[in-house]
C-alpha cells in the first residue's frame, strides 16, 4: 500500500515550478482526482509529450498508448529519445538537472505530472530495470530482493518479508539458483543472475508497470534469452515497456512496437509508427520504419 504525503517531494531537478508545466485544460481533472493513483492502474496514455533537457528538446509530440498485460517495445536509432520517453513514465526524467516535461502522461486517467501527485508514489507503482544490472553492493541477495520493502514499507514481519522475497525470486526465475546463498553479496552473481535479481527487486514491491531500459544489452546471448522468457511470463501480471537497440529482440519479445526517429541529428525525436509487432516487421506503413527495421538506415 503506497505511502503518500509523508515524504518530502523535492527532487534535485530544480524547483518544482520548473519541473512540470500544466496546460490549463487539466485543472478540472486535478480537482476531481485528488492525490492518489489507483492500485491496479495499468494503462499509460501519452498525450503530446514533449521532453526537454534544459533548452534542448529531446522528444516532440509523442502520443501513444501502452496497453496492459502486453509488452510494448520502443525502438529507434541512437539519440532518438526512446530512453527519455521511458524515463518520463516513472518521473525519472526530471531527476536530470534542468529537465522539463510538457504534455500529459496518464496512468489510467490520472496525469502523473499533475501538481498533487507525488513522484515517489508514481515510482512505487511504476518499476524500472536498468541497462546495466545494479544490485546494491552493500546488500546480500536477500536484502537486495527485499530492498524495495525495507526502504519503503514499514511493519512487515520477517516471515512476510521472507515470503515476498521468495515469491519475487521465483517470479524472476532466480530462486533455484540463489536459495542456498541468500546472504551472500548481491554482486557475487553472474551478469544474467544480477539482472534477474534486479527484476526480482522491482517486482517485490508489486508495481503495476515494469519499465525496462535495454535490460539485456550487458548480457550474453543465453542470459538474454532467459530474460526474454521471463518477460513473456511477466506480461501476464504487469504492463511492460521495453527500450531496445536489438531489433530481433523487439521482434521476439514484444506485442506492440513503437518506432521513434530523428529527422536529422539535433532535431527532437518523433514517433513515426506504432503497431502490432508482427505488422511492423512484415509490412510497416512508413518507409522510415521499413528502412530502419531492414537495417538500411542505422
Amino acid at each position, binding site marked *: 500500500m503506497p505511502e503518500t504525503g509523508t515524504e518530502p517531494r*523535492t527532487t534535485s531537478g530544480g524547483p518544482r515550478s520548473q519541473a512540470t508545466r500544466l496546460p490549463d485544460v487539466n485543472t478540472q481533472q486535478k480537482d476531481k482526482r485528488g492525490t492518489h493513483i489507483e492500485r491496479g492502474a495499468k494503462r499509460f496514455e501519452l498525450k503530446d509529450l514533449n521532453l526537454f533537457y534544459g533548452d534542448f528538446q529531446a522528444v516532440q509530440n509523442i502520443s501513444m498508448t501502452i496497453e496492459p498485460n502486453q509488452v510494448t517495445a520502443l525502438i529507434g536509432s541512437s539519440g532518438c529519445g526512446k530512453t527519455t520517453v521511458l524515463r518520463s513514465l516513472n518521473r525519472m526524467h526530471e531527476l536530470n538537472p534542468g529537465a522539463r516535461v510538457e504534455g500529459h502522461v496518464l496512468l489510467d486517467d490520472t496525469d502523473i505530472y499533475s501538481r498533487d501527485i507525488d513522484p515517489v508514489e508514481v515510482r512505487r507503482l511504476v518499476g524500472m530495470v536498468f541497462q546495466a544490472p*545494479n544490485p*546494491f553492493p552493500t546488500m546480500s541477495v536477500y536484502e537486495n530482493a527485499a530492498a524495495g520493502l525495507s526502504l519503503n514499507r514499514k511493519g512487515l514481519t520477517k516471515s512476510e518479508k521472507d515470503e515476498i522475497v521468495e515469491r519475487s525470486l521465483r517470479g524472476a526465475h532466480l530462486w533455484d539458483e540463489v536459495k542456498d546463498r541468500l546472504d551472500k553479496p548481491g*554482486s557475487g552473481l553472474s551478469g544474467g543472475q544480477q539482472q534477474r535479481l534486479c527484476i526480482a527487486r*522491482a517486482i517485490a514491491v508489486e508495481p503495476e508497470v515494469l519499465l525496462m531500459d535495454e535490460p539485456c544489452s550487458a548480457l550474453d546471448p543465453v542470459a538474454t534469452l532467459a530474460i526474454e522468457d521471463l518477460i513473456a511470463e511477466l506480461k501476464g501480471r504487469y504492463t511492460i515497456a521495453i527500450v531496445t537497440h536489438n531489433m530481433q529482440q523487439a521482434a521476439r519479445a514484444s506485442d506492440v512496437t513503437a518506432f521513434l526517429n530523428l529527422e536529422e541529428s539535433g532535431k527532437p525525436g518523433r514517433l513515426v509508427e506504432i503497431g502490432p509487432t508482427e505488422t511492423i516487421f512484415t509490412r510497416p506503413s512508413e518507409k522510415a520504419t521499413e528502412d530502419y527495421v531492414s537495417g538500411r538506415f542505422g
Partner: protein
Amino acid sequence: MPQDPIGAGSGVPEVVPEGAGGLAVAGTGGGPLPEWTPYTVTGGAAALIALLLAATGSFSIVLMFVLTVVISLPVIYVWSRIAEGPRRALDRLATLSIVAAFGIAVAPLISLLYEVIKRGTARFDSAFFTESARGVVGAGGGAEHAIVGTLVITGVATLISVPIGIMGAIYLNEYGTGRLRRALTFFVDVMTGIPSIVAGLFAYAAFAVFLGPGIRLGIIGSVALSVLMIPIVIRTSEEILKIVPNHLREAAYALGTPKWKTVTRIVLPTALAGLVTGVMLSIARVIGETAPLLVTTGVVDSLNTDPVSGRMQNLAVYAYTEYKNPGVMKQAAYDRAWAAALTLIAIVMILSLIARFIYRRFGTEIR
C-alpha cells in the same frame, strides 16, 4: 673505476653501427643482459665506493649514495647500449633514474623514522605512559597527561568535525546545485589552506568573547582542530561520494525511495569505508598540530580528562615545551620530547592500520 662487465656470458662488446636510414639496430654485442645486471652493477659500485671512502676517511651515506648513482647509471647505460641496443639502454636508464629519484624522495622519511626511533626509545618505558609530569623536576616522569590530552582533544575535534564535514559533503554532492554549490566548494578549498595558528587564534578569540581573555580549555583546542579538519573531511568525503555510481541512486529512486532515504540507506553505506578512511586521514593531519593548541589549550603538568574545564596538555605541545624549556637535566627533557614524538608517530600509524583494516573488511567493491 672498473668497467669490466660483471658476470659471464657476454663476449667482447663490439661497436654497433647505426642501420641505414638511421634506424636503431638491436645490439649485437652479446644479446640481452641478464636480469640481475642493474643490481650487481649498483651493488658493486656502492661497495667499492664505500671502501674507498672509508679508506680516505670521508665516509658518509649521502656521499656514497650520490657517487653510486653517478657512477653506475652511465656504466649500465653504456653496457646496455652496446649489448642490447639504444632503445633498451634508454629504457634502463629511465628506469634507474626513476628509482634513484624515488630513493631521494624516500630517504628523508627513512632518516626521520630512524632518528625518532633511535632517540625516542630511550624513554619508551611504562613510566612514560603511566605517569604525568606533575611534580617532576629533572629526570623521570611521563607523558600520560599529554597522551590522554591528545586523545581527548583530537577525539572531541573528531566528534565535532565528522558530522559537520560529512553532512557538508552530502549537501555538496547530493543536493547542491549551481552557484551556491560552486561558492561553497570554493570556500571549502580556501579553508583547506588556513594556517593552523589562524585556526587556533580564531577558536581562542571566539571563546574569549564569552569566557573572558586568558581562557584555556581542551575544547577550545578541539574547536581549533576541527576548523582544520572539517575542510579535509568535506573534500575527501565529497570525492568518495562522487565515486558512488549514479546508477545505484537511480535504482533506489526507481523503487520509490525518497531522496534522503537513498542517501542514508544506500549512498552512505556504500561509501562507508571510504568515508572512514577520509576521517582517519583528517585525524592524522591534525593530531600533531602544535601552534593552535599552544594558544588554546595551554600547558599543564597534571592529568586533566575534562575538556571543558582547565588546561589540558597534549603530545605536540609537550614535545615542544620539553625541548624548549629542558630545565636543569637537559638530556632527560630531550629524551621525553623524543619519546613524545615517537608516540605521536605510533598513534598515527595505528590509526592508518585501523583505517586499512576497516577498508578491507567493510569496503564493498563499488562498480
